[in-house]
């Protein structure tokens, strides 16, 4: 039986409804205003009054307006045809809305996520008589690059027998393709799509595994220094304009995964437009297909309803989990999780809950944690693996990381890519600060090498600070060289021109190759007579290296610049031959870099780049393995 109610109060997008009968927390209801039906969700129940967040503008609503409760939770539709689409936070396809309703997002207009007309070529994967459980494959349809698996709906519990299964032919998503029978003999017809409540994680798998395989983003500072693993989590906090969005856009283009889901959460509509207009024109070099075919965008941008912004990240992660169940690697990028947190703050404020820090609700931390917990590498019941990797940007108030959302996020993610204002002001992109960022995941370079670079950079930074006090004349030439090396490594490797067609994306092979070259320079011994000479040399080296960076991998230009560089290096740098043997050289370097690294390290990293202060509440993949 469907419960009705009437509006008692209105406070922006929060309404209070007087109801009779039974309703449940988080169920969907519709406010009826004229011929419009405004979607809303129950967020609190007190006696005969329920508070509902309305996913639309509430202008013109009156006390006494009718509300219909649906009995259903907030769900998304799962089936073939999600890829390549642009949805709003409630999974309305925006292109279809535009076709039907024009330039503006009219209130109360909804369209099904999946086209009811489109035909899909279904191939059955099993025969009548087979026994199946939730999540198992009934058959497949080709969708973009993949064999999209038509699975037994995730919400079916227990074991079913396949009574009928459709023949290989074309069907619409709502056509019946199978008939199942449960243990009691009840029949259950299935189509190619089903609904799943967004706030509930899909957890039908054998086990969760520890994320180890690097997810290659083709951004050097990330892959080499602060890597992300498939099934892992990372966050990108940074003040406005530091490059969070550009970094995510680059990642969404170049990351080597099967599917990318972009949750544009409460940020600029223009940024979504760039993606939807450009991706169809870009060919993914890995697959030779348009990038849009592996992408789903959930765009609930800043001027769209705030309550729908709150649910948009769940819409996105639910679709990610759905494709993960097919054994695919899915990357979810959320920009910005702070807007999502702010949407919760607005809701909490209207509910007059006791506020925590900066008026965020007291449960902020646990909600952030449970969102990132939906990432993971899993072994499915049929033995294949699939993963959801989640990366969220954070937009801290005043650019100060010491605020609730950043802090709560840092507690739960596996990698931290902190953007710094100094670096972005100096146009050192990507502005990830190598001295504060960290990652718990394994890089393709060894951890000693990673450590060596961190040592170099922190020592170089220290010398730079020192030089501000004692001047260049008060700095030894040995120190000055370390400073130049740090500057050089930063300039030609960590910095990367995102808008350059070549430099914008660096493959793993190329990173390894170039890194080796750089290692030679960093560990090389140079004899210069004076600082100006040293500086001039590194300027020259830098220029050659930048040329190398914009030369196509494996091209003639590349080898030419590489030879040029090799020439420059052998001219001024005494390599192993004349320098002491390897171990000695290592010792020499350590002595050079170490003095302060100990301190830097103790504040920054403990194990695999994991921050020390998280040692006490380490709840990483080790713990997950036990599940």
């Amino acid at each position, binding site marked *: 039986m469907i419960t009705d109610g009437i509006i*008692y*109060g*209105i*406070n*922006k997008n929060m309404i*209070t409804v007087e109801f009779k009968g039974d309703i449940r927390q988080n169920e969907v209801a519709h406010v009826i205003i004229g011929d419009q039906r405004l979607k809303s969700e129950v967020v609190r129940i007190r006696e005969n009054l329920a508070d509902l967040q309305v996913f639309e*503008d*509430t*202008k*013109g609503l*009156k*006390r006494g307006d009718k509300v219909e409760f649906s009995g259903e939770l907030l769900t998304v539709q799962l089936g073939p045809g999600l890829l390549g689409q*642009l949805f709003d936070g409630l999974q309305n396809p*925006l*292109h279809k*809305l*535009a076709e039907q309703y*024009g*330039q*503006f*997002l009219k*209130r109360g207009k909804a369209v099904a996520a999946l086209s009811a007309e489109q035909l899909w070529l279904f191939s059955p994967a099993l025969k009548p008589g087979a026994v199946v459980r939730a999540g198992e494959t009934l058959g497949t349809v080709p969708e973009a690059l993949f064999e999209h698996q038509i699975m037994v709906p995730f919400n079916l519990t227990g074991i079913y027998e396949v009574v009928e299964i459709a023949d290989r032919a074309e069907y619409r998503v709502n056509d019946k393709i199978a008939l199942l029978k449960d243990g009691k003999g009840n029949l259950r017809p299935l189509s190619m799509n089903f609904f799943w409540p967004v706030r509930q994680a899909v957890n039908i798998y054998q086990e969760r595994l520890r994320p180890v395989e690097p997810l290659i983003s083709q951004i050097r500072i990330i892959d080499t220094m602060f890597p992300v693993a498939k099934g892992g989590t990372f966050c990108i906090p940074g003040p406005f*304009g530091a490059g969070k969005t550009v970094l995510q856009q680059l990642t969404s283009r170049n990351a080597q995964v099967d599917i990318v889901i972009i949750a544009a959460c*409460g940020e*600029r*509509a*223009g940024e*979504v*437009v*760039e993606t939807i*207009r450009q991706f169809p024109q870009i060919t993914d070099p890995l697959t030779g297909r348009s990038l849009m075919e592996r992408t789903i965008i959930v*765009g609930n*941008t*800043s*001027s*769209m309803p*705030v309550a729908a912004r709150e649910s948009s990240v769940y819409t996105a992660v639910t679709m990610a989990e759905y494709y993960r169940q097919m054994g695919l690697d899915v990357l979810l990028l959320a920009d910005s999780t702070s*807007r999502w947190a*702010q949407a919760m*703050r*607005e809701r909490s*404020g209207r509910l007059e809950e006791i506020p925590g820090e*900066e*008026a965020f609700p007291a449960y902020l931390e646990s909600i952030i944690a449970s969102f990132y917990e939906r990432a993971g590498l899993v072994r499915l019941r049929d033995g294949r693996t699939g993963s959801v990797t989640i990366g969220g940007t954070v937009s801290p*108030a*005043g*650019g*100060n990381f010491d605020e609730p959302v950043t802090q709560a996020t840092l507690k739960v993610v596996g990698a931290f890519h902190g953007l710094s204002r100094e670096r972005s002001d*100096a146009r050192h992109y990507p502005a990830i600060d190598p001295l504060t960022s960290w990652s718990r995941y394994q890089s393709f370079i060894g951890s000693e090498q990673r450590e060596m670079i961190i040592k170099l950079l922190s020592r170089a930074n220290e010398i730079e600070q020192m030089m*501000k*006090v004692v*001047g*260049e*004349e008060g700095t030894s030439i040995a120190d000055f060289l370390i400073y130049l090396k740090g500057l050089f490594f930063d300039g030609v490797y960590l910095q990367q021109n995102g*808008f350059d067609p070549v430099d914008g994306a660096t493959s793993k092979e190329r990173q390894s190759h170039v890194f080796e070259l750089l290692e030679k320079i960093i560990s090389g011994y140079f004899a210069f007579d004076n*600082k*100006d000479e040293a*500086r001039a040399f590194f*300027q020259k080296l830098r220029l050659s290296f*930048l040329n190398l960076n914009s030369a196509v991998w494996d091209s003639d230009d590349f080898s030419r610049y590489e030879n040029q560089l090799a020439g420059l290096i052998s001219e001024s740098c005494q390599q192993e031959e004349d320098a002491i043997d390897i171990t000695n050289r290592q010792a020499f370097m350590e002595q050079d870099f170490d003095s302060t690294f100990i301190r830097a390290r103790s504040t920054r990293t403990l194990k695999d780049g994991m921050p020390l202060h998280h040692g006490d509440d380490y709840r990483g993949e080790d713990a997950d393995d036990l599940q």
Partner: protein
Amino acid sequence: MRTIYNKIRRVSGNVIMVQAEGVGFGELAMVAAPGGSSLAEVIKIEDNRIFLQVFGGSSGISTGSEVQFLGHGLKVAFSENLLGRVFNGIGEPRDKGPRFTDNLIEITGEPVNPAKRVIPHKMIHTGIPMIDLFNSLVESQKISIFTSAGEPYNALLSRVALQAQVDIILLGGMGVRFDDYLFLKNALEEGGALTRSILFIHTAAEPVAECLMVPDLCLAVAEAFALEGKNVLVLLTDMTNFCDALKEVAISMEQVPANRGYPGDLYSQLAARYEKAVDFEEAGSVTILSVTTMPGNDVTHPVPDNTGYITEGQYYLNNGRIEPFGSLSRLKQLVNKDSREDHRAIMDGMVHLYADYQETLEKKAMGFRMSAWDNKLLDYGTAFERELLDLSVNIPLAAALDRSWQILSACFKPQETGLSSELIDKFWPVNDEKSKVDQDRA
């Protein structure tokens, strides 16, 4: 005739509460007060208790004052006749012109469907190198001037407005000093632009809350013109006053503040306005250039902070010039790839070197010996400031690029600039030009 209510049960700040029936959320009302009646808007409903934000302020309102609901939300007249006219913050004529009652459009705040937007692609030329070369302004961009009291921000606004090739200019003033209003109006008039301008001006002397509607009025009119195919530039000065008015309402409603007294939805409130900037697929565009004065010149203050997160960049106007650091046009890469091939490289290279110059200045100030490199940087920095940074410089983009190469070649050897060999081969000025610059400078 609609019912008149006179049971005012609460007056707090600019918010009053009246008992009434059948009132819609967001509906407007007229509240009778001793000094004349004032417009008000329904901001909360709780049973039959209706909370109203009174734009004229609550001063003098009695428990028996009359409240008449109008049955609709905020509307604004829209027609070509608006051009050249000046209105106040609630849309009433400020000049001697007629009042419009036809063709009223309701301000719905419906967002544009992102699927219907196009990627901005047309550069707006301003003749200011710090904008054109370093942070290009783009049609349909929303961008703010971050500045502080006393800076010539209104002069900058009017300069951009006059230089820009737009069809219609909307000027929204919030809490502007009367002098500034006259200055802006005169500037538009003298520049011959007043006849294609529409002004909604709330002055500092008027009730604070009356500035709350200025952005909505301007943007609704701008959007209507854009849908007719016009390219519209909206100037909003000063958005900090708008935010402060929002803060007052929130405090009157006893909302828990999120940050330094400002409400938690400040971001969403600002976004609802700034996101009106748009380039329509089959029609015109709306570009927003606003002024945000930073209290205490502090960019981490909630107003500039939230603004920076929404706008597509900001120009820092400090000591009478647009700062090269921090200033940012997020859309510049959409237009500077097609302007001239050296545009991007010059833009980055010049700023890199200017940053190095700043460091050298610091060192110099601390009394360190200047190396040969430091001395080059010092020459460079001085030339850069004089020939490009100064706000009085008014040259087209191509000239600004040429000038950049001349400054570079006068100060550095090619490989010291960090620019690619390809560009250097093509653009590095030959010697006689260099000596010419040297002469010019002498």
